[in-house]
């Protein structure tokens, strides 16, 4: 009888001890996990275009964290959906066409400066402050800062903003992916057939 009681007490004592140690460790060595909103936000392309229906990428990230679907980002396309699915453990969904289509060509806004009347409406619309100008002065787009979100095009009263594709430069160019096994050797003229040496 007393042996059983002793064993029970010993086990309870050990449980309490380890529980206390674990509890202390949980508090003392707590790892601040990256909040999921930040992680989602880091995956989103940060064009701040609002095509998802939210005023910027972060609000959409917050909404996704709150249970919204993660397929409303046309600039991110398939890749962002894929990454978000991995992060959140959700199914990979096809892009919601309602919010726009994926465009392969990256674009930037260009203001036809002769036609600009200096109304500042595009400046107010730009989510990343990429348009420079003042009231009744000509405006211009800082190309390096432009995310190509399109938001400045609509407010322009004289339609002097064009979305132009970014030209490929020697710096931005890179080799294409080889066409692979099932394809004919078409488009491989750039390859040097080293085996024929």
């Amino acid at each position, binding site marked *: 009888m007393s042996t059983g009681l002793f064993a029970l007490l010993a086990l309870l004592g050990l449980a309490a001890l380890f529980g206390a140690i674990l509890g202390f460790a949980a508090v003392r060595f707590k790892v601040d996990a990256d909040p999921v909103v930040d992680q989602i936000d880091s995956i989103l392309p*940060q064009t701040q275009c609002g095509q998802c229906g939210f005023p910027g990428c972060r609000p959409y990230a917050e909404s996704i964290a709150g249970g919204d679907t993660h397929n409303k980002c046309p600039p991110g396309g398939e890749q962002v959906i894929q990454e978000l699915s991995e992060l959140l453990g959700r199914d990979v969904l096809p892009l919601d066409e309602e919010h726009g289509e994926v465009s392969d060509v990256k674009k930037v806004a260009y203001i036809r400066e002769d036609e600009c009347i200096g109304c500042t409406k595009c400046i107010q619309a730009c989510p990343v402050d990429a348009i420079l100008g003042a009231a009744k002065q000509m405006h211009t787009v800082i190309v390096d800062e432009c*995310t190509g979100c399109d938001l400045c095009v609509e407010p322009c009263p004289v339609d002097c903003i064009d979305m132009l594709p970014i030209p490929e430069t020697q710096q931005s160019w890179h080799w294409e992916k080889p066409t692979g096994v099932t394809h004919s050797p078409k488009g*491989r003229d750039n*390859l*040097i057939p080293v085996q*024929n*040496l």
Partner: protein
Amino acid sequence: MVGRRLWQIPGGIHPEEHKSRSNTTEIQQGLIPSRLVLPLQQHLGAAAEPIVTVGTHVLKGQLIAQPKGYVSCPVHAPTSGTITAIDEQPVHHPSGIEGTCITLEPDQKDEWIEHHGQPTFWELERSDLLSLIQESGIAGLGGAGFPTRVKLNPSSETPIQTLLINGVECEPYITADDRLMRERADAIVLGSYIMAYLVQPEEIIFATEDNKPEAAEALSDAIDRIKAHPLTHHDRLSTLSVSIAVVPTKYPSGGEKQIIQIITGKEVRSGAIPADVGVVCQNVGTAYAVERAVCHGEPLISRITTFTGEGLYKPGNYEVLLGTPIEEMYDQVAVREHRIKRLIMGGPMMGFTLKSARVPIVKTTNCIIAATADEFPEPPPELPCIRCGACADACPVQLLPQQLYWYSKTHNFEQAQHHNLFDCIECGACAYVCPSNIPLVQYYRFAKGEIKAIELENHKADHSRERFEARQARLEKEQQEKEAKRKERARKAAEAQKAKAAKKAAQEAEKEAEKAADKESNTAAAAGTATSDGTNRSSTTEKNLSEKSLEQLETAFNKAQKKWKDARKALTEQEKKGSDHIEAYRNKVDKLKAKMDAAKEALNQHGSAATQTAEATDITALIIAAAQARTDVTKAEKALRQFNDQKKSESDASSDPLSDPSSAPSKEALEAQLAQAQEQAATLHQQLTAAKEAAKATDETDN
């Protein structure tokens, strides 16, 4: 030279050399072409900036574009002539994308700008010598084009032990360095000494392959000859040991990290530079260019380029002016244009196909292969990987090409990076041995490009996020400021309003005080009595009130009349006296007259009203009484409600002002009081209606 210990590099291949096609003839001088196209980017780093304008006449060796930043190189005019354009032209890039170039139309005079060498360079300051090399536009001529000044000025903490002069030239077809070593070994050795003077190594090692014995011999002779040069007895160079290392022929022994490993046994770890292991490695062509620049004052305006391939009759090495379009060389090298299937810049392993024959020769162009269809046929179709592992055996940097291939193919770039994709030197050995004809290197190039693009995009996204957040913060701040301003304004307005109200209240209070006596005596008091005394007495009170007010009005009229009379008297007196204030007196009289008239009017009205209404109640008093009655009704209702709500709360009911102030509020009397109040309310309501009717009647009669 004999007995030098050499190390092995892993992997490597032994492709057919095809070198004899071009290395049997002496270096020939390239002709001055009809135009020279000089790209601003012929080196690694930032592109140069043109300092000439279209139409400028320049002399041979004149600076036409200056470097931008530390890792950059200037560009010089290769011959005398006129600048005809600064625009986009096809350049040496596998994409075929055009780059900015300066076009020079030679005048065929080949007139040098004033220049002089520094044969006694050791008298110069080290920094001056370095800037002389930089100003001469020398970039690594081996193929990468890294600015030589940067390499000769190592910032590494490790002292430089070895200056390695790389004459290995392991890639098939290329013989430019071979011919250069054979024919101009003296200059190469002297150039190497100049570089040794700058980096202060313990030894200079000339490395070459055993398939170029003539080159090794020439170098050896040159080293013997230079012993007579006064330079070798200079303090800084007297203890220098100079030797030649002949390495076995194997591709890619000529890679910088590979040749360092073979000669010194030291491996340059991933991400490090040779200076970190105490080695500076320079190409023989670069050594030659340094000698020309320092001892002769000639900037880098020409280079030795191998022209080879089945597509031309006169293969060989040509000293061509930089900027010479390849098509301008066609005549001299006797190209069979119709036979050329593809034009390759660089070697067959690491070079790329040119999209245009207008591309100019640049500082890094060591070879041009004009290949026929037989020589380089269409690549055979890619077959599935059979996991044979031949690529891993061939890899000189011990990567796992097969894994990299899978990861690159499936866009698993993270894994590809874990497998050190960026340590791949793109030598092509893996693709060369692949039995499935997989263009492995292109997969790696694609993956590298994608990773860089993704990194750039991420960087841009971060930047955009920052800007977006900054904007949000700014807008919020603006909003808050606006809000604060608005609140401030509202607060000020409220204060002003308060002050105004207080002022008004004070004024009103004064007025009230003035009128207090009158009011108390007539209307309010009368009404108060009327309500408190109940309905029965109200009519009598009203009668009393009307009598009272009639009396008051009469008194007021009499007073006014008296005042007016006095005033008139005073006025007449003043008129007699002819006073200045006569106008004021007159005004006063008028005012008093008006007052008196008003009082008279009121008296008359009152009198008529009193007579007209049957019950003889004063109309004003009646209205007030009616109002009071209304209030009483409401109060009575309220009391009733309150009572119903909380029967126990006696204090509430008893303190209710509607109850008769004389009757003591008690629990027992509550019911009776309530009934009385209700009754009172009802009667008052009747009274109110009656009063209203009376008022109406009065109004009508007045009208």
